[in-house]
């Protein structure tokens, strides 16, 4: 029995929750690593600015982590409320990393509380920094474990189905599925990359708003460097993801690349538009590039959509999502690289207003890349919730009233979204860095 309305509403609500949660979750994974780096640089260089950077970022981080906790709890429960049939099946095979994620988060939450309230308890700053390590590890491992579950949805293994019954379950084989390495690496690297560019954007914004303080310049330079490193990592992992898809989920790759016919010497289609008859218009074709992406060999055969039944092909609009994600990633590589080289070589134009605005735009753009990346990942798996095993429509709840819940949760996310933006901007506007430095100096003289 499938309740079509409930299926649709469940998809909408899940997409809403995840799209909102992923912003805070991404920052929640990446920002503690940035705080750790700043804190460490501060101790190494004995530079008060970096220590304060860590301290001020932590205050902001607490707000984003709180919203992450709330929305994470929401999605955790919604998985069972909206997709009970899926969770009943998945629970038997992939519950282990879900369970471990709780521990990772538990660990993170405990030490975040301690780190936050113990800034002045230690004479030796290094001891305080030690408390942050479990926060960063816990946050990153939360991402690792949750992404393992998502990877399992793309490449389920670790069980057999005999007469409709799940048998021979092996939780470790399920965790370490073929989609896991590239997916986990991609999620973690992009979380670091996005967090670095968001923090860089804040520094650039303060500079544009008239502050000329070294503090912001140091923050900006540090974050652009780290952002560059992780965007290069993302590029390399992205290439490996292409190879994973070609081997295990060729329909997802083919739909994202508009690769209709199976062929060798396959070209990569960039940008473009689909008309009513699914003809590609105004696209850029890079010869052999898809074969290279899929198999690292220009003559390699790449499976096209012609190999799949019509009702098992994901929607073709994921090509646009793919392009936006990759385009933003490439742009950020260029911007951060130019900034890095520019600072070392004293290029003037990286200090112009226009370039700084570009860096500011990089923050929200990186978030958009995260969003489009997840939409691509999820829509690209359709019609399956568990590829090849269970379709999304079979997984959804049969209960009515899911549509009302959409309004309820929209209200909650609206309050959380507006609230976090207002509180964050007020927190830093009321206590600018100039004032905090002045106050600390005063305290030392006393």
């Amino acid at each position, binding site marked *: *029995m499938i309740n079509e309305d409930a299926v649709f509403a469940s998809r909408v609500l899940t997409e809403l929750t995840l799209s909102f949660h992923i912003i805070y979750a991404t920052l929640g994974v990446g920002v503690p690593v940035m705080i750790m780096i700043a804190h460490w640089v501060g101790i190494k260089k004995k530079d008060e600015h970096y220590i304060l950077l860590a301290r001020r970022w*932590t*205050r902001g981080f*607490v*707000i984003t982590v*709180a*919203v992450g*906790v709330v929305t994470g*709890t*929401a999605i*955790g*429960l919604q998985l*069972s*409320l*909206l997709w*009970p*049939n899926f*969770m*009943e099946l998945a*629970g*038997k*095979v992939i*519950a*282990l990393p*879900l*369970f471990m994620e*709780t*521990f990772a*988060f*538990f*660990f993170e*939450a*405990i*030490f*975040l*509380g*301690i780190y936050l*309230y113990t*800034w*002045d308890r230690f004479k030796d700053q290094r001891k305080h920094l030690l408390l942050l390590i479990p926060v960063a590890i816990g946050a990153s491992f939360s991402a690792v474990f949750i992404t393992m579950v998502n990877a399992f949805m793309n490449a389920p293994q670790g069980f057999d189905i005999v007469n409709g019954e799940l048998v021979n*379950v*092996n*939780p470790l084989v399920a965790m370490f599925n073929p989609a896991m390495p590239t997916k986990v690496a991609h999620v973690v690297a992009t979380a670091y990359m996005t967090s670095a560019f968001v923090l860089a954007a804040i520094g650039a914004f303060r500079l544009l708003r008239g502050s000329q303080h070294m503090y912001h310049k140091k923050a900006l330079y540090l974050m652009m460097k780290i952002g560059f490193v992780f965007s290069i990592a993302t590029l390399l992992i992205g290439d490996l993801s292409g190879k994973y898809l070609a081997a295990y989920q060729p329909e997802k790759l083919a739909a994202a690349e508009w690769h209709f016919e199976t062929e060798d010497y396959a070209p990569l289609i960039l940008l473009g538009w689909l008309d009513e008859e699914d003809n590609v218009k105004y696209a850029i074709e890079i010869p052999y590039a898809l074969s290279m992406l899929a198999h690292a060999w220009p003559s390699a055969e790449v499976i096209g959509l012609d190999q799949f039944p019509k009702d098992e092909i994901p929607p073709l609009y994921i090509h646009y999502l793919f392009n936006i994600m990759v385009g933003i990633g490439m742009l950020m590589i260029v911007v951060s690289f130019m900034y890095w080289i520019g600072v070392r070589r004293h290029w003037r134009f990286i200090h112009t207003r226009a370039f700084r605005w570009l860096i500011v735009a990089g923050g929200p753009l990186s978030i958009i890349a995260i969003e489009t990346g997840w939409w691509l990942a999820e829509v690209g798996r359709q019609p399956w919730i568990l590829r090849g095993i269970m379709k999304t429509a079979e997984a959804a*709840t*049969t*209960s009515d*009233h*899911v549509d009302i*819940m959409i309004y*309820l*949760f929209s*209200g*909650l996310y609206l*309050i959380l979204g507006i*609230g*976090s933006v207002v*509180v*964050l901007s*007020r*927190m830093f506007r009321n206590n600018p860095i100039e004032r905090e430095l002045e106050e600390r100096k005063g305290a030392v003289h006393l």
Partner: protein
Amino acid sequence: MTMNLEVIGITVLWTFLFGYVIIASIDFGAGFFNAFSEFTNKQHILTKIIQRYLSPVWEVTNVFLVFFFVGIIGFFPKTAFYYGTVLLIPVSIAVVLLGIRGSYYAFETYGTKGHKGYAFMYGVAGLFLPAALSIVLTISEGGFVAIVSGQPTLDYWALFTSPLSWSIVALSLTAVLYISAVFLTWYANKAEDVDATNLLRKYALTWAFPMIITAGGIIYQLSSHNPAHYERILGIWWMFAISTLFFLGTVWLIWKRKNYGLAFGLLVGQFAFAFYGYGISHYPYLLYPYLTIYDSFTNEAMAISLIVAFILGLLLLIPSLYLLLRLFLFSKDYVRGKTDHY
């Protein structure tokens, strides 16, 4: 009841749920007292105590709940199908209320202070939450879920007109206020805040008897709603008797203004005996009469790996939790507000 994987699994989960019931009750009740005192101008007495205790631990509180529901899907995946389908509305409402409370901590305590409406919503959310969450226990007693063409459906009319559900709601509210008041009396006393101690002691004594009466009322309700469960409760009457003795001990100590720490310890004992007594008498059903821990259990491989992960996780968490408590709950300087803010 023999010790098999099923029983180990449910015991672990029940223990986490018990942990959540105690620390979330402290949290919910504190929020209510805080809001109440804002409107009766006793704010200065309570707010500080509450913020110093609650702010560092609220995320940890939340994890206990997450742990329970993730764990129950892991050990008993069929619960996702039964409870997931019927609980859409009550649990969604609970999530929104949790959202309001979580964001209050973040926005008000770390951010900027004082929005009266928010404090009010935060306090009220703390009372609606136990009510919304306690519906799960009511439903588990059976009689509210029917299987219609293979799908479990919840009879809201039966639920809202049942005296049992209202008794359980009443118990959840009185228990939240009682647990919270007893704990905060102890905490305020440690902080050497005489005014707050007196006020909270008064709250503790106020809510003690409504709590015990509603608890007794539920056992009486069960005799007609679910006779099988009632019989099993009578079978382990001694657990509830011990629980009652502990209750009297707490009230006596609070009344005599003696040893608030021991009073809170007895309270935890009281609730432990009642909670495990309830759990044991509920055995083996997760949902009367459809679901037992045996027919909903996961495969052996998953169960064993979950238990191993659980033990390894505990080895990591127990020292960490100890550190947290030592720094915030048991540190005299911190409790009295002497150390620096972030």
